[in-house]
Every structure is written in structure tokens, then in C-alpha cells.
């Protein structure tokens, strides 16, 4: 169904989308690490990186509201951790600086995720000699996360149409049953996948 909101724009056609995934991953890594290690200072370095990111975002033709929404969605986590810094030795200045720094990194990663299909990133990781078991796990996860989200949605709908209680304890119990069923179905699906993998001569 419609779970493409997760990386809907990662398969557009633009100069950014066409450039190699390895280059984008390494560039994003360098940018994130460089920004993260920036010592507390004036706004100029951060503003320069932001301008660069905005230029890339415009060139990528991903709708700006989509990017902004994705960034805002994750901003509460940044604010939560940064709020702890308010009480520390840094005070307001460090707080603002941390938020700015973290938001720049966040934007970089959102931009990377929405200009590069995840399967391409996996291919880069494979050529970077990431252990195959981890890669298999990640690619199966990416393949089936949408299937399981659909499955969870269907079970949730079925449960909502059958149980009418507003009692919280019951809600927890029924929701836990949905989660447990999701695991059982995942493990059954894993068995079928294993049979299919064997049938196709895996290993």
C-alpha cells in the first residue's frame, strides 16, 4: 500500500539522484562528521554548510515541504537532548549552537536518504566489505518492513472493528496480542522465505 512516504523521492531523476551512491554517502559522512566536530563558534561555518545543503536540495528537485516536514518530524529528539545542555555550563549559547549543528547534520541525512535509494546504499556498504550477515539482515529488513507495516495496519483495523472497549488495560492487552501475532507471522514468513531461498539455490 502507501508506505512510500518513507523514501518516496529517493528514485527521482535529477543530477543529484544520478550521481553515484558511494560519492553521496562519503560526502554526507564527511559533512556530518565535520559539522558534528565543529567547536562552539560563530554562525558562519554552519550557515555556509546550510547554503550548500539548500543548493543540493534545490538541485535534487525533491519538494521542499517534504524535506522540511521530515526534518521537523525528527527535531523533537534534537530539542530533547539539547534541552539538557540548557542546565549545563554552556547555557543558552551552547543550547542554540547544538540545535543548529544537529539540525544541519539531520538535514544532510534527510537529503541523503531522499536522493539515494536504500538498495544503492546497501550496494555501497557491500563493496565496503560490511559483513554479509549484517547486509542480508538489512536488505531483508528493508524488503519486508513495508509488508509488515501493512500487515500490522490490517491487524490493527481488524482489532479496532471488533473490540469497542475504551478501557486502557484491555487496549494494552489487545495491542500486545497484535504485536505478538506480528512476530508469529514474521517468523512464519521467515520460514517460507528460507524455503524460497533454498529453492533458488541460496549458498
Amino acid at each position, binding site marked *: 500500500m502507501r508506505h512510500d512516504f*518513507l523514501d518516496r523521492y529517493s528514485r527521482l531523476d535529477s543530477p543529484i539522484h544520478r550521481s553515484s551512491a558511494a560519492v553521496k554517502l562519503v560526502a554526507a559522512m564527511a559533512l556530518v562528521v565535520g559539522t558534528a566536530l565543529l567547536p562552539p563558534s560563530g554562525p558562519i561555518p554552519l550557515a555556509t554548510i546550510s547554503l550548500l545543503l539548500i543548493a543540493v536540495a534545490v538541485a535534487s528537485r525533491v519538494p521542499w515541504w517534504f524535506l522540511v516536514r521530515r526534518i521537523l518530524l525528527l527535531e523533537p529528539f534534537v530539542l530533547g*537532548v539539547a534541552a539538557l545542555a540548557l542546565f549545563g555550563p554552556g547555557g543558552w549559547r551552547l543550547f542554540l549552537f547544538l540545535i543548529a549543528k544537529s539540525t544541519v547534520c539531520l538535514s544532510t541525512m534527510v537529503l541523503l536518504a531522499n536522493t539515494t535509494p536504500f538498495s544503492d546504499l546497501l550496494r555501497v556498504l557491500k563493496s565496503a566489505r560490511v559483513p554479509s550477515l549484517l547486509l*542480508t*539482515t538489512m536488505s531483508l*529488513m528493508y*524488503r519486508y518492513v513495508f509488508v509488515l507495516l501493512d500487515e500490522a495496519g490490517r491487524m490493527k483495523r481488524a482489532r479496532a472493528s471488533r473490540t469497542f472497549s475504551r478501557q486502557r488495560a484491555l487496549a494494552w492487552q489487545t495491542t500486545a496480542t497484535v504485536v505478538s*501475532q506480528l512476530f508469529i507471522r514474521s517468523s512464519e514468513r521467515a520460514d517460507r522465505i528460507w524455503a524460497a531461498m533454498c529453492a533458488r539455490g541460496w549458498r
Partner: protein
Amino acid sequence: MHIPDGFLDAKTAVAAGVLAATGLGVALRHAQHHLPPRRVPLLGLAAAFVFAAQMINFPVAGGTSGHLVGAVLVAVLLGPSAAVVVMSAVLVVQCLMFADGGLSAIGANILNMGLLGGAGGWAIYHGVSRTVKGLFGQVLAATFAAWCSTVLAAVACAGELATSRTVSWSVALPAMAGIHMLIGVGEGLITALVLVAIARTRPELVQPDPAIEARQTYGAVVAYGVLIAAGLALFASPLASRWPDGLDRTAELLGFKERATAPILAAPIPEYEMPGVQGSALATSLAGVVGTLIVFVLAWWLARVLVPHRVRGEGRESDTTGQGP
């Protein structure tokens, strides 16, 4: 609990990254050698399950809701090495695809939620479920382990932030540990409910597979123990008041503060900080000990409620009758 980018300094990120990479390496090696090949797809599906389950909300109060983290649940169902691999895969995908959790903080996040949450949680589960037998013991152990692993991960997270000097230890520890002692109760409750529901329909999934158990080597377990101990020693030992000493703090405050920042803002902070430094760490650890005992008793009570006497020890019987859809 995902640490975003920009909050860790180089030494913390690298140290956590080395520990996480070693732990993940041990887990991958162990899984490769001891996991039956037919269970390989289960790792991917379990990772997808964790991700999907994290999207299912449990109503808490006043419109807020919580969700399962799942490290201990996966560890109970699949074993410690598989749990570390699964949680690491989840964290990497969350970081690369959704920008949830920083790229430069991925090591710290894997250390906190994969190693401490998964392998650490499993160790607690294993210890308790060996002393208290049956499904009752398993539910009790899983509930308790889920709470412990949540708090443990939060403490390590606070320690990493404090070691990076982005936040001060005396603020980070009570805030992170306090909040996650509450969140952990929810995590324990959900883990228990899900585990009991799985045991009711498919008891064999909850029973440890003797074929795997026999091949279990303890080398991996020892390695996890060493890594977890190293992680806690590195990041959580300011508990013993190594970090926040008053003089250092004052010097830093005076050195860092510029005239531009109004003294109105800066002044209340030292007053608030100084007397509380030793006290708050002590009080937090004391609260931690008391909280742990209370949670253990609560877990016992919950397991008693969820696993009534007649069901206890009947795991095999319901297995043969094959109830459920």
C-alpha cells in the same frame, strides 16, 4: 534514546564506535558459526518486526502513547547474538533511511541499544530465568530485564553525553535515568504481555531451542560481558564522581562565559549546580537501587497475574494439543 548528530565529541564517538564494532563483530561471528542457516531470514524479518512494532502505539495517559523498543523481546526469542545483529541492523537502517539517530553517533547508539539493551538485557533475563523455572520465570525475567536494559541504556547515553561535555553529568543522569525508569516500566509491561501472548499461541517459539542451546559457546557471552563492563566503566563511572568536581566546573564556566551572555541567565546555574553535584549522583544511584527492587517485585506480581498457577509447567501439554489458529 537515539542520540542525534552533533552531541558527541570525537573521543566519545570513537570510543563508543570501537566498543560497538567489536560487539557487533563478536555477534556476527557467533551468529555465523552457531545460528542454523534456516534462521538467517528470521534475523531480517525480526529486524523488520522490531521496526514495525515500534510504530504500534500503546495509549499511556492524556493522549500520549508509548511503544515497544524490543531489544529484550528479540533477545529472549532469538538469543543474545541475534539480538545484537537485529538491533544493529534496525539502528543502521533508521539512521540511513530516516535520519533517526546520528551517523556520527551510530556507534554510541549501537552500544546503548544493541549491546547494553540486547546482550545486557539477555544476560539479566538468562540469570533470572535460570533461577525461577517455567513460563512464570521467563515472564518475570523478561519484564525485569526489559526494565533494566532500558535504564542501563539511558545511563550509558547520559554518560556519553556527559563525557562529551555537551551536558553536565549531574543534569543528564537524573533526567535520563529518571525518565527511562518510567519508560522502562512500560517496556517491561509490553514485553511481558507480548511474550505471554506468543507463549499462548506458539509455545515452541518461547521455549529455548535445545539444538541451539547445546551449541551455544560461552566465549561470546564472556566477550559481551567484557565489552559491556568496558562501556559502563568508560561512560558511567562518573557515578563515582570522577567528572563533575566543583573547581573544574567553575573554571570552565568562567572561561566559557562571555560578557555577551547576560549574567541574569548564567548566575542561577552555578548556585543550582554546586551543592547538588555529589548529592544528586548519590541520590540517583540510591533511587536506582530502590527502583530496581520495586520493579522486581512488580515484575513478580505481573508474572503471577499473567501466568496463573494452572498454566505454569504445562508448556509441553499445550504444545501437543496445538491450540490456536
